[in-house]
């Protein structure tokens, strides 16, 4: 059993399905939908089995506890890149989220009449392959390969299926991401060249880090060390994806013009890759620089939380409100990561899962409302509770989960993150608390505005969600309540690798790879 390359199957199953789709005639829409759903479902089942079975002990003596390790030479010696895949606690949840939201995307697209269905489904499956590759890669070059490859199907999805404003939004997104990732590529090359082991392999780089180097002397002014420059390159690439203010401006425009089915997995998983990259690469490979810039990153996170909330408060387009809300909530994840302690990172991982579930469901619900009423203006929508009692209930739970209601899933993540932030500096959760209070304001105003008060012309005669739409939402709602009541399984798997991340990020002085028992409360 152990020789079966499970992770490769997870990565390339959607790709194979995508290629197979090309053989299907474009008119056989049922077959196309069926094949897409079957492929995403098979991947999701496989991922679920892998994650459920990963409690066994991983390879010993490695800095990261990688399960289902696959390691082969990819590009031979001069480049020395490896086809190295592995699953750890962070990647496990990212992968599960990935499989889940793509399955959801396939279900959503099968309910809609999209022109050129074959192209859409093929691109969807390609994106899944690329994101799964990003998550599973344990080699810097392989990671970069998938990171860039992801943009290609995304670009075609946006440019072919987006709404009227797609041109500018797509341009902004692509330019930004490419600019960030080119910087990252330079940093990756620097890492390899600088490392005594001369490898792109993440584990090798972690085990034998290169020297930090002297600060660059720029006409007598001591700038950063090369390592700090490399860290900044990574940080900018991931900060664009996360996004942290002021690198966020691509996100609201893009979400606004994104096709609804693509938005589910776009918001659900693609934006989490920034957080993933920060935890997996930026804080582990650069333990020194990450502490040098910790306060900058924490400040940016807090600014992101409050700025995103204020923007959400002043918007009237419901999709843009949720886009800014998403930015604000991703800032909370950033806060957890840059707290650089076990609680913060565990909370960030838990919250990555939660936010993926919540934001995908939110956009699903908003998509349904937009489809039914034909408008996205908050002021034209009211009184839907009477027309759509089922949707009202689902939307209520999702709204509450989004604003961090205790008892629902995001509380588990946010509470843990805030505790971690508190252990770093006591004022941080207080500042983030402003974001929480504002979140209640704009989320409840959104929910109440759409659902309550007398009907408007646009909302009169709107019918409730269909049976199938309801059954797409039910598992998501069940997850929100289930994780809220019993978040331990999520935390347990996240915790499998968190201590390694914390140890790695605290630098070479820390004891090697032992769980941090008492990372020290506030005095």
């Amino acid at each position, binding site marked *: 059993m152990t020789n079966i390359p499970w992770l490769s199957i997870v990565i390339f199953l959607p790709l194979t399905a995508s290629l197979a789709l090309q053989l299907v005639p474009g008119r056989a829409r049922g077959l196309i939908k069926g094949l897409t759903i079957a492929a995403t479902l098979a991947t999701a089942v496989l991922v679920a089995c892998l994650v459920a079975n990963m409690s066994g002990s991983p390879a010993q003596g490695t800095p990261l506890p990688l399960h289902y390790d696959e390691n082969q030479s990819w590009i031979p010696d001069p480049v020395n890149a490896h086809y190295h895949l592995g699953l750890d606690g962070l990647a496990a949840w990212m992968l599960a989220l990935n499989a889940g939201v793509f399955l959801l995307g396939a279900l959503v697209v099968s309910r809609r009449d999209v022109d050129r269905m074959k192209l859409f489904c093929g691109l969807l499956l390609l994106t899944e392959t690329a994101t799964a590759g990003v998550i599973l890669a344990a080699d810097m070059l392989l990671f970069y390969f998938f990171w860039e490859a992801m943009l290609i199907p995304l670009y075609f999805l946006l440019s072919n299926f987006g709404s009227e404003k797609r041109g500018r939004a797509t341009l902004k997104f692509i330019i930004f991401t490419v600019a960030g990732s080119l910087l990252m*590529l330079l940093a990756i090359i620097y890492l390899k060249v600088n490392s005594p082991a001369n490898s792109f392999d993440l584990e090798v780089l972690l085990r034998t880090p290169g020297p930090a180097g002297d600060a660059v002397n720029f006409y007598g002014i001591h700038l950063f060390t090369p390592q700090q420059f490399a860290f900044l390159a990574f940080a900018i690439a991931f900060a664009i994806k996360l996004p942290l203010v002021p690198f966020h401006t691509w996100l609201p425009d893009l979400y606004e013009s994104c096709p609804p089915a693509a938005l589910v997995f776009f918001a659900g998983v693609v934006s989490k890759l920034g957080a993933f990259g920060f935890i997996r690469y930026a804080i582990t490979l650069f333990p020194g620089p990450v502490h040098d810039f910790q306060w900058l990153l924490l400040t940016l996170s807090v600014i992101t939380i409050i700025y995103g909330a204020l923007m959400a408060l002043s918007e009237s387009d419901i999709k843009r409100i949720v886009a800014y809300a998403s930015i604000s909530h991703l800032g909370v994840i950033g806060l957890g990561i840059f707290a650089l302690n076990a609680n913060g990172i565990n909370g960030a991982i838990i919250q990555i899962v939660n936010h993926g579930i919540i934001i995908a469901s939110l956009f699903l619900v908003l998509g349904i409302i937009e489809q039914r009423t034909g408008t996205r203006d908050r002021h034209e929508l009211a009184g839907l509770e009477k027309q759509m009692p089922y949707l009202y209930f689902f939307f209520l739970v999702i709204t509450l989960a989004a604003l961090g209601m205790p008892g629902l899933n995001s509380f588990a993540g946010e509470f843990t993150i805030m505790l971690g932030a508190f252990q770093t500096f006591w004022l941080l959760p207080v500042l983030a608390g402003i974001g929480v209070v504002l979140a209640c304001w704009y989320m409840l105003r959104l929910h109440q505005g759409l659902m309550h008060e007398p009907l408007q012309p646009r909302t009169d005669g709107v019918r409730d969600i269909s049976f199938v739409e309801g059954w797409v939402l039910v598992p998501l709602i069940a997850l929100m309540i289930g994780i809220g009541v019993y978040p331990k399984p999520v935390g347990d798997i996240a915790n499998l690798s968190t201590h390694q991340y914390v140890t790695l990020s605290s630098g070479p002085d820390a004891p090697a790879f032992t769980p941090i028992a008492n990372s020290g409360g506030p005095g």
Partner: protein
Amino acid sequence: MRVDTVQVLCGLILLLPLAGCVLNGLVGPRAGRKFVNLAGTLSILASFIVACVMFGHVIAADAAHKAITVHMWQWLDLGTGANLSAGVDFTLDPLSALMVMVITGVGFLIHVYSVGYMKHDDGVARFFAYMNFFIFSMLLLVLAADLVILIVGWALVALSSYLLIGFWYQRPSAVLAARKAFITQVIGDVALVVAAFMIAGKVNSLSLPTIFGGVGAFDKGGAYVTGICILLAIGAFAKSAQFPLHTWLPDAMEGPTPVSALIHAATMVTAGVYLIARFHPLFDIAPTAQLIVACVGMGTALMAAITALSQIDIKRVIAYSTMSQIGLMIFAVGMGAYSVGMFHFTTHAIFKALLFLAAGNVIHALGDEQDIRLMGGLAGKMKWTAAIFAAGSVSLAGFPLVSGWFSKEALLGFGANGGGLLLALYFVGVAVNILTGLYAFRLYFTVFQGKPQTARVFAAKEAPMVMLAPVAVLGVGALFFGWIEWPFPGLWHLMSDFLSPVFHTAASGPLAQEPGWTVASLALVVGTLASLIGIGGAFRLWYQHRPDAAVVADRLPRLVSLLSLHKFYFDEMYDALLVRPLCALARVMRKTVEPGGMDRWVRGTSGSVSEMGFIARDTETGLIRDYAVYMVAAAVLGVVASALLWFVR
């Protein structure tokens, strides 16, 4: 008490209301009114029976086993020490048993009453689902033995309050009031969460028994523990509608009247009192925080009592009276008189639920009229309701030998014994007594006595049995329940004796001791006289002379009457200082910073990059393909570049 018994009891008492909620929510809308009524009320009756069994167990338990903590399941386990670990744990002790009894007992009566009150409403299934959910959340809050679970219950009661305030969701005012209540309470939630972090930072645990066992880790009277207590108190103030987080409570009267009785009078708003009493080991070592709490409590009591005097909405008068009475409870637990505070909580739950429900009868009989200026003379039409309302009013005003008198005079006695600032607060409390008598009987006389003010009064009918019987039961309690505890040393102290295992450390509380005979009787005489003066004044003003409210207002100093009429201008102040500036800031930032600052530099960058990329191209037509090529090229280029670099080296 045995652990497994407590586990079963806690599980049952929580699951029963939850089952009622799920039943009503899922099948209620289709199953018909009878099913909804039965599922809604019987689930609470069943949990009341379980509560009685619990109560019996606690009474029967020997001194060493009065408090049992049980572990249901692990909520989150991220390691030891500073790493977060929390379990779904419940505690059964005298304090939680008392709370459980009040919640389910009063809750059951109000549920029965709701059957009648909501008889003509289409959303009755939704109503009972929310009400049952509230009982579940409140029980979760008082049984929680872990801070995380306490916070969950703490927030869920706010949620059910939000849902029920906004129950009539087609009224814009109800929608706004619901949101206001929720947001205000979230401010308190944040304070509570930060307090939890501070506690965890010292004792490395969120489990209440561990925290209370480890209070030795805090410096007595130190800034750290004072900070924790102030944060806890902010949480309590938000929930219990105390200054400065009180403005949501009067607006919350938009909800149906049974909701006001259950959530905004008897149980949820008193959760702040419970929180402070529960955390008494921390408050006992933070005297500064205790004094602040006592001052805020008494200040709110005075402010709300003044405001209640000139309100014209029957429910709002009672709402301000609730705020005022909770202020007294907060004053009591603030100065360390926990048992007495809980005693007043219990009597208040009874007589205030009664007042709301009786007011509901009036509102119902008059076809949803709430303006007391349009009532009058209802005693002739609604004899039973009038009599029961009078019983509630004498209890509220503190007429001698009625329930409210025992608890209120007892807690004022503690203040009189405290000396210094507490003695000053005691005299404020005497003034509150006068005001309470005034507004309580202003309400009673204006509504039930005198001449009918509108034709609708003539058509009013007595409420049906289903709405009268629960109120009558409460009426008996409002008159006689207080006899279980006398405000003198050495006499009957059933409540204090019952609670003493929880508060035994409070015996050495630094602020207030139980008064001896001299102080107790002196305080009692002064307090009672004040109450009687208030009642007498109300009798002269609103029964014998019957001037309009405006005339009375003229007799008060102009400033006081203005403040009273405008609720001390708090809504206007918050609107001008918080809400509007925030909205304006958000708007300005969206118009200037986002497109001007953030977006411009992005566009600048992207513009120059795109010019570089497509310098000789028509960007509109070949965009898609070119971009794909560009990106593939970038990826390949990366690989090739790294390879080249290596060859060169």
